[in-house]
């Protein structure tokens, strides 16, 4: 099945460089899964699903500015879009039902425990905002604590209300002291008091942040299999065929993007660029 057009219903404005796009499409989704959006003439990129409201999807996108000698980026082109415009969604080749969802979800990999920590770095909050709602909706009375960090408070603004609705506790860290704790979100992990109860940590942010967060949780006694990371990678085929998205031998587009720390920890330090050349992430 080929790519299908999908109308943008509404746009949510976060900061200058963060916007949500609410799409005229929906299907049962697990936080962590992503859609593949194509803008003809620009590019085709993966985006984590961040909203699932009344059966309609939404994605939250951070605009990445292109370098002077380069072409306009996909996210820049998306910021030119208005409600009523189309993006094209690419279906998942795994699914005979023509699902537009790719990859696995957080809760596929590790169901919520009694106590759950959601740790978001920057735009990593996008899939975690959906996860908070998902755990809430399970009615398991699972405890959800959220830690969110960003360069500036304006970048997390679009997520705060959503986390407040579904989490029991919310801690904030900013690089520039615009709100909450002045420092890294991973510092907040050290300030938690861990109980005997089984804790699951769900983390999403850049590789350095996820590795630091995982190490902190492990140091506090959370087993590596209970630290769940949502990774990303440069993707080309979205079908597990080309190997371009590979990290430590796993193909992120089909084996992930969600992995537990014990499985992916050796893959965080390296990824591949467009040529397939291995590059260090941190």
């Amino acid at each position, binding site marked *: *099945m*080929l*790519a*299908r*057009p999908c109308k943008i219903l509404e746009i949510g404005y976060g900061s200058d460089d963060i916007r949500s796009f609410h799409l005229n499409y929906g299907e049962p989704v697990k936080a962590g899964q992503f859609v593949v959006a*194509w803008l*003809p003439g620009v*590019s*085709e*990129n993966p985006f984590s699903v961040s909203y699932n409201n009344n059966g309609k999807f939404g994605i939250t996108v951070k605009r990445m500015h292109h370098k002077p000698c380069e072409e306009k980026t996909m996210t820049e082109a998306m910021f030119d879009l208005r409600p009523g415009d189309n993006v*094209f969604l*690419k*279906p*998942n*080749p*795994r*699914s*005979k039902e023509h699902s537009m969802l790719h990859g696995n979800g957080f809760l596929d990999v590790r169901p919520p425990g009694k106590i759950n920590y959601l740790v978001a770095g920057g735009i990593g909050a996008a899939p975690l905002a959906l996860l908070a709602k998902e755990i809430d909706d399970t009615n398991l009375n699972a405890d959800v604590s959220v830690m969110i960090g960003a360069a500036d408070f304006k970048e997390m603004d679009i997520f705060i209300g959503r986390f407040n609705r579904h989490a029991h506790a919310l801690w904030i860290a900013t690089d520039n002291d615009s709100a909450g704790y002045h420092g890294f979100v991973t510092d907040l992990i050290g300030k938690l008091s861990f109980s005997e109860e089984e804790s699951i940590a769900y983390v999403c942010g850049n590789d350095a942040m996820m590795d630091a967060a995982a190490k902190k949780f492990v140091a506090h006694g959370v087993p590596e299999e209970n630290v769940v990371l949502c990774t990303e990678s440069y*993707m*080309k*085929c*979205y*079908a*597990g*065929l*080309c*190997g*371009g998205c*590979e990290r*430590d*031998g*796993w*193909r992120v587009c*089909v*084996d992930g993007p969600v992995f537990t720390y014990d499985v992916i920890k050796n893959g965080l330090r390296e990824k*591949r*660029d*467009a*040529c*397939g*050349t*291995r590059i260090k992430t941190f």
Partner: protein
Amino acid sequence: MARLCVELFGERIEPAVGNASGIFSYARVLSRIKGLGFVTYKSASLNARPGFVAPTIAEFDDFGSCLNAMGYPNPGIEAIVEEANEYPARYPIFSLIPGSIDELEQMIEIVEKKAKCCFAIKLNISCPNTMEGEKSGINIGTDSKLTREFVEAARSFTKKPLIVKHTPAAKNILEVVDASIEAGADGLALINTMPVQLKNPHMYDMPVLTRKEGGGLSGEALYETGLDIVRRVRQKYKSIPIIGMGGIDSGLRAYRYFEAGADAIAIGTAFRGKSTLEVNEFISTLLLDLGENIPFRYGSIEELRRKRQC
């Protein structure tokens, strides 16, 4: 499974099943794939190459068939060799897609000097996703003279087993295969993808891929063509080793390729959408089918080979 083994270039390959070039691509990915008898790495150019901007692949036909215009993105032959050394496979094939005879010489030298293990060198003169004006890939494989020139050169640069991968798009495939064999090829890989264009009716007939000329067709839609070409080449050449590929997605389809005259087979598109666990299960099931269920109904691969040799 002894009944699935083949003697290829003096080595006993078991099973006679590998991945198609460009599938999984890198040694580290292949290190997690279990059950293949031989592996082929991504077709490499001398220098790193990013390929085309996405979308570079589209599935259709209920995902049975695939169109790709990756444009052979690769980190360069040296990086491929280094990774192969780091994550070794027992029978690795290095696939090369040179832009010139000079590049071919340099690439072969890198493989010979730096690869700790090299089962064979594959010359890709059939990739359809070249850029305009490039003297590489399919632009060579559709021309008998150029084919002869490149294969002769490769032959002079290496004593390693030399496999030549051919395109189904050649006007007269037997003529091009002739040139390959006369120029010194030790084996043939039949076939590469078929160059076609595909437009999306849901998008005002816009081409589905970034590359405006279209891409290479693989999977279901390639099966009959691949089988036919293997059959016809085998009819003419009784003993040249042939690795058959094109739309193999089951033990039975693999068997048909062996029946048509292939010595070994490779699988590509059939792996689409599968996690590592699922790929390994798929290979395991296919080998079980090919090694146990199918011989029970149709006879074994060895019987096919024996019949052919009479």
